């Protein structure tokens, strides 16, 4: 798989190298994902944000010095946490969801030669490719030694021992909607280095418009991903990289 990916990237770089208006690069960064939902009347239970990462390619096609179209094929972790508190403190689950994602954005840049600001805005499509669940739950069949009559108990695990798990998430085709569409916007600054490389940092927001679940029940509580990304990357001007500074 890695070999094919490397071949594809090399071929892509070579074919692009003759087209001066293309830039290609890599980026990666930190993701803080919130799931927009609610826990209803579940006792002592809340959903929380959870960290992840994003890594991928950056492809830019420049129409002029301030407008380009950008696509970032990437892998992104959009995770969230379900946690209980008070007497149920210690019961939690991390849903670590991996997506292959393709944001396509208009790239607006402004400023000087070396330092420039930019704004990205557009939409994205993503495919929920994998999932992992990690957590702890009370195991009803794993009872602990009896609590002496004169002692109080700090948490539920004192009655039923914790079952700790870290396993692959099993998709349920009746419920899980694996294709996600949404909007994306971001902004950042870039620095031109040796006329060939542009280093950038960017803050980006992905606004999911697709419920993670199919419409399978009345009174379904939707789950939408809200992903905040802080990333850095480098773009290569292929023509200058392979053909020098001649215009």
């Amino acid at each position, binding site marked *: 798989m890695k070999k094919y990916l490397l071949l594809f990237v090399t071929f892509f770089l070579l074919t692009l190298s003759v087209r001066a208006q293309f830039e290609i690069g890599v980026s990666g960064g930190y993701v803080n994902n919130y799931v927009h939902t609610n826990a209803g009347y579940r006792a002592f239970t809340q959903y929380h944000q959870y960290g992840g990462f994003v890594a991928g390619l950056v492809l830019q096609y420049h129409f002029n010095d301030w407008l380009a179209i950008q696509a970032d094929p990437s892998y992104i972790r959009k995770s969230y946490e*379900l946690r209980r508190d008070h007497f149920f403190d210690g019961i939690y689950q991390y849903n670590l969801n991996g997506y292959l994602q393709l944001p396509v954005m208009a790239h607006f840049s402004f400023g000087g030669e070396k330092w420039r600001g930019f704004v990205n805005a557009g939409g994205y499509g993503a495919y929920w490719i994998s999932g992992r669940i990690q957590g702890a739950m009370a195991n*009803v*069949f794993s009872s602990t030694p009896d609590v002496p009559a004169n002692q109080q108990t700090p948490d539920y695990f004192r009655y039923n021992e914790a079952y700790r*798990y870290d396993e692959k998430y099993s998709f349920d085709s*009746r*419920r899980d909607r694996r294709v996600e569409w949404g909007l994306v916007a971001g902004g950042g600054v870039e620095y031109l280095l040796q006329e060939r490389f542009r280093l950038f940092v960017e803050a980006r927001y992905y606004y999911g418009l697709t419920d993670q679940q199919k419409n399978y*029940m009345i009174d379904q*509580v939707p789950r939408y991903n809200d992903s905040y990304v802080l990333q850095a990357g480098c773009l290569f001007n292929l023509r200058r990289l392979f053909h020098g500074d001649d215009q």
Partner: protein
Amino acid sequence: MKSPVRYILPLLLLMTMACRKDLPQLNDPQNYVNANFNEVFDAFWTGMNNNYVFWDIDTVNWDQVYRTYKPLFAKLNVNDSNDVRKAYTYFKQMTSGLVDSHYNLSFADTWLADSGSISPAYLRKRSSPGFHAPISIFHFYDTLPKYYLDAGRRGFTNTPDKQYVAVAGTIQQNILYFFFNGFSLKTLFNTDTINGVKRVEQYFFDALANRTDLKGIIIDVRGNPGGDLADLNFLLGKMVTQPLHFGYTRSKLGNGRLDYSPWAPAYVAPQPGSKAVTIPIVMLADAWSVSMAEMTTMAVKALPNGHFVGERTWGANGPLTANKFYNGGQFSTSWLTSVYTSSLMFKYKDGNIYEGIGFSPDMTVPYNPAALKAGRDLQLEAALSLIH
């Protein structure tokens, strides 16, 4: 240069216009006011929608139930006794196919005081061809000791909820027999005062610990409706020295019908002073062995020396506790005293879920009222033949 703003603004506008579905407000079923049947229905339907743990395997279409019965309840008057009785019928119809065999609806309305609670599993079994009444408790307390036990103890204990009965003894000198009609063994054994069941338990545990000439053990849970989960370790934990894996449980994790925790392994944990019993252990269970009686049977069957004789069990395998502990299961509304339903789903170690089906014996011996009347217990005799 054209201003980028002319492109950015429409995109931002598109973003703000793009909409998501609203998050529905889910209310605790207990908080609905039973002032009309709209509220009574919504409380029940919502409670089931979010708390019932078997939606994964249940064949009842709960959305269709909503579409069918919501308008019917809307026509009823909660202060009209005829309508209240009609509502009772609707509740019976709505729940008739539910797979949860613990399931039981009881009503707070005084006009239904003379109407029994609704148990879909019981109603289904009652109309099935092989249905029979439970074996009389006097068979276990009087007849069986008289015809089969050479020595032993029997006793009973009255509690506010139930009369517990237990019998233990030996058959053919070296087969240890233990019958009890409910799972409260640990509680009754740990009471300060001596009681009839405790004495029987003590006899059984002493024989189990001290006798080296035993050829087999028979644990009789026929007619046993279940009880405390803690009894599993308390009883079988004395017969194993390693954790005995026999199944898995999972609970609800969110409000969605298919939002579940992962499967957690179910074990029998060895108790202090336990010994590895290698002689045959035979479970005697029948169609009236429910819940803990079934789980105990399943656990014994997971042992290499475990056997099961009798009839297919009732089929109620999901453990029960208060709703808050596992975020699902039983609940109540202002009109329903109790919607009694499992808190967790149980899966046997073979990967099958026997909820609503029952666990099958490896030696089937049907209920035989004529033989019982004549003082013969063919199921017990089959268990004895397995040991010999």
